[in-house]
């Protein structure tokens, strides 16, 4: 290949490499796009090896060269491959003929990291160094290290050492001393090579050593805390333990967090700890209520490494009512149903102690959060929140209103009933039905009266049959004489105006009598068995069957 052809081929390789750098970030390992991108790049590089055994790139600040030919140039700061390698000191990068696909992939995984945005402990050189590639070499200019090194240090140090030369007379004395004492030699330490068993023991030690160190770090931090003297040291120790909790949460290790909290909890009641230390340890425990930790808890609960329910239950033990607010804020950001359920359980547990604080969150701007809070209030069932719930009945989202209605129904009480009664006249049929059901859930005589009144209203007859039928069905929940007589009266009602509506009401009453299951209704129902109105006839027959069947 001619030099210009080689340069062209390398330009293409670099273009491919830059493309791959972006693509591999976008797709997970093993994804067909990921695999194809890598295969293409590998094929391109291998193609070059048909002409040369090695691809050596010289790295400049803004350019990359093949021999003296410039094959890449970019003056932008972003996405600049040259500057990316140059800034860490890489001055030459070589791929040799035997390059393996696996090596190329590892290499790409190093250079695709966004070192400016992602938290990275190491730079590119260190990561390349750790990989110890067989077929990828790099030359590093360590000049940047020299910024922190005094170049004259060696000369100064050596000069200082040489200023104390060995005295010849002393040396001569040493010589004569040793000649006189030559027979009194002490036995030197014996060197025994390690046995096979010892080597095996060592292998086990090294394997064991690879396991996580966070548990040990936690122990050390507690020792630091226990050994701390004075406010300053105690504050530092608590800060470190708090950082440890945050770090473990970031790394989705709730077990470490629970261990720290358990130990802190033990210390907080230990007579061995001073009052001051107990005060600080309480500060540590309360850190789990912070926005930061709750946010991380949300990410953890939402993540693929889903946390066990039992772990969360344990975690909740250490939370206080202060956590409610952040829990609710994070609840709205959760992505999975499971996470939301778990968070709701936590809030139910904590909210019991401060329902008012919880009720205050009903003004959250996110309708789905408000609905969850209403659900939580229902689970808690504290009537102190009824007024707040009643206010929420005016929420603009029907889904929230329905949840409130159901909750008020389960909460019972006069205020709830009055609010629900007003909802029976709502414009939205779903709200009307939900309210009726909620009133039915209250189940009291006054609740029954509210339904009876509603059904008796003149406007009620204007509603759709299905809604009216639902109301009659709801009414039948009360196995009450007043209801029975009302239904019988409705069934017997004659009307010359609006006959078809009247037949529908009669049919609904027959249907409700069937549900009521009172055999005394049979003679009245039988009267309408042969009626000409098909709807009424069907409902009457259905009701008779139901009552007879229930009685048999």
């Amino acid at each position, binding site marked *: 290949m001619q030099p210009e052809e080689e340069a062209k081929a390398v330009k293409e390789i670099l273009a491919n490499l830059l493309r791959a750098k972006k693509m591999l970030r976008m797709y997970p390992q093993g994804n067909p796009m990921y695999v194809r991108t890598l295969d293409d790049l590998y094929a391109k590089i291998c193609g070059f090896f048909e002409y040369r055994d090695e691809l050596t790139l010289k790295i400049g600040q803004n350019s990359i060269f093949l021999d003296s030919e410039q094959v890449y140039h970019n003056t932008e700061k972003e996405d600049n491959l040259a500057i990316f390698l140059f800034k860490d000191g890489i001055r030459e990068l070589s791929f040799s003929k035997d390059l393996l*696909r696996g090596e190329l992939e590892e290499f790409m995984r190093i250079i695709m990291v966004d070192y400016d945005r992602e938290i990275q402990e190491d*730079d590119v050189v260190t990561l390349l160094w750790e990989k110890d590639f067989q077929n990828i070499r790099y030359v590093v200019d360590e000049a940047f*290290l020299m910024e922190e090194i005094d170049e004259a240090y060696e000369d100064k140090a050596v000069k200082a050492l040489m200023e104390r030369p060995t005295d010849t007379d002393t040396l001569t004395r040493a*010589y004569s001393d040793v000649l006189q004492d030559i027979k009194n030699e002490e036995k*030197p330490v014996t060197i025994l090579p390690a046995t096979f068993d010892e080597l095996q023991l*060592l292998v086990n030690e090294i394997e064991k050593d690879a396991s996580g160190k966070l548990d040990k770090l936690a122990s*050390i931090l507690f020792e630091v805390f226990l050994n701390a003297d004075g406010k300053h040291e105690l504050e530092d120790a608590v800060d470190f333990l708090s950082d440890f909790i945050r770090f473990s949460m970031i790394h989705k290790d709730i077990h470490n967090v629970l261990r720290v909290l358990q130990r802190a909890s033990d210390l907080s009641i230990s007579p061995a700890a001073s009052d001051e230390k107990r005060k600080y340890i309480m500060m540590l425990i309360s850190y789990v209520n912070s926005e930061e930790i709750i946010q991380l808890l949300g990410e953890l609960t939402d993540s693929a490494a889903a946390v066990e329910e039992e772990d969360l239950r344990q975690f909740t033990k250490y939370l206080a009512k202060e956590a409610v607010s952040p829990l609710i804020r994070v609840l709205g950001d959760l992505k999975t149903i499971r996470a939301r359920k778990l968070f709701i359980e936590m809030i139910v547990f904590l909210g019991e102690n401060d329902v008012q604080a919880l009720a205050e969150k009903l003004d959250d701007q996110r309708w789905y959060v408000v609905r969850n809070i209403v659900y939580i209030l229902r689970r808690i069932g504290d009537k102190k929140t009824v007024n707040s719930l009643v206010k929420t009945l005016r929420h603009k989202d029907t889904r929230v209103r329905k949840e409130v209605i159901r909750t008020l129904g389960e909460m019972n009480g006069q205020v709830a009933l009055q609010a629900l009664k007003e909802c029976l006249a709502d414009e939205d049929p779903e709200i009307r039905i939900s309210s009726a059901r909620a009133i039915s859930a209250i189940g009291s005589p006054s609740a029954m009266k509210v339904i009876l009144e509603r059904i008796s209203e003149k406007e009620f007859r204007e509603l759709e049959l299905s809604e009216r039928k639902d109301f009659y069905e709801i009414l039948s929940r009360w196995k009450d004489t007043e209801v029975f007589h009302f239904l019988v009266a409705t069934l017997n009602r004659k009307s010359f105006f609006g006959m078809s509506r009247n037949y529908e009401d009669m049919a609904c009453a027959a249907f409700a009598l069937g549900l009521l299951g009172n055999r005394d209704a049979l003679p009245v129902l039988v009267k309408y068995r042969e009626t000409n109105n098909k709807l009424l006839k069907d409902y009457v027959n259905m009701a008779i069957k139901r009552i007879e069947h229930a009685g048999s």
Partner: protein
Amino acid sequence: MPVHEDKEIDLYAKDIINQLSIIMRTANIHSPGNVAVTTAIEKYVYLINPLIKSEKSLLLELFGEFFYINGARIRYSLDYLVNFDFLVREFKKRELGSILFSDFVSPNDLHVFLKAFISSGFSEIPYETMSDEVSGIKRITIGRLKKVSDESRTDTRKTVKKSYFNAVSYVKGVLSKIESGEKINIRKAKRVVESMVDRLPEEEQFLVGMTAIKDYDEYTYNHLVNVSILSVALGHRLGLNKKSLAVLGIAALFHDIGKIEIPHEVLNKPSILNDDEWKVMKKHPLWGVRAILKLRGFDSTAVRSVIVAFEHHLHTDLTGYPKVSDYMELDLYSRIVGITDQYDAMTSSRVYSRTPMAPDKAISMMMERSGTQLDSLLMKFFVNMIGIFPIGTLVMLNTKELGLVYENNEVIPERPKVMIIMDNAGNRIKGSVLNLARKDDSGRYERTIVKTLDPNKYRINLAEYLL
């Protein structure tokens, strides 16, 4: 090529070395005709012949501490550590540098080779013996272990010296930055340690030699670098991988960082510390934890550094300081640094004791603590590394020459290289470096150590000779 194939190739190459080691080990226990040996040989033939077929030949070489197959370096891995180390030692013992399989080998070829390998182990001239015995096998050729020329050794020594002082200067800069509350760049510290790790396989002796000079003006900085070098060297002997060695090196470099909080008048007190001062001194592991976490947060290297800073005086039996209430066993890195820190401190001159302990005396004293304060297994490896006669030990030879141990001999520890500083008439010279493993024409060693002396007692400036 799919990734799994890359891994398989790597595994295959390791198997070739591992299996060879197994044959040698088995043959050390059983006679060559034993079924265990025969089976191992057959397995080996089955393993290598396909590679010989595809590559036309198979060249197994040893450079430094690493094996290469057809030019590619075979990585060390924990699973093979024991067998790899065994083979490296056996190769070195025979000065064997390479084995070339140029065509299909038969079990019989390998039997002859094995016999030659075993018998050469007992020979005074092992390589020659082996070479003679294998000359009949056409398909197997051996090569002598390549030695680094004296010239390149001088260059290497210079480079190592430069690296050492750069590291000390860097540490000095870092500590002064920490003291003044500035942020430090840990990535740079890693690069300093990485260059040290890179030098280890080939230049362990030189690096460890630099730590033997104990008369530096700035003990604190030199001590940190020395402990880092000795720890990384010991870790390398233990078979830790590169990444782990770098982390160990960093942890060792920062193990005493808590001392920056100790008041200067206590730290540099020229006499014995009183109880209160000791109390302050004993706080430095706790302060070290604080300093590291404030500087670095919780990255994985920081976590290891914290552990080492906290535990390095705690002792294996937890009898040291700080006092702990409820604690688990010491971390491996802490046990390593515990040893190297103690050794370097004992053999260095300090403000309160200008005369340091002789290296061999320090080793003897540490051996007494082995199994209680110090980990006995690690101590064994440490003594193996430092040698019976550590670099810088003043020795009298049977030729009545006085010398300083200049370089250890890994295969025959009692026969290091020695720089002669007084001739047999008691005249001061700066003589050449002699290899005590050298034999005369009659097969006897030319020189042998008959007595060791404390170079500090006679105020011998090791830098004059070792730098």
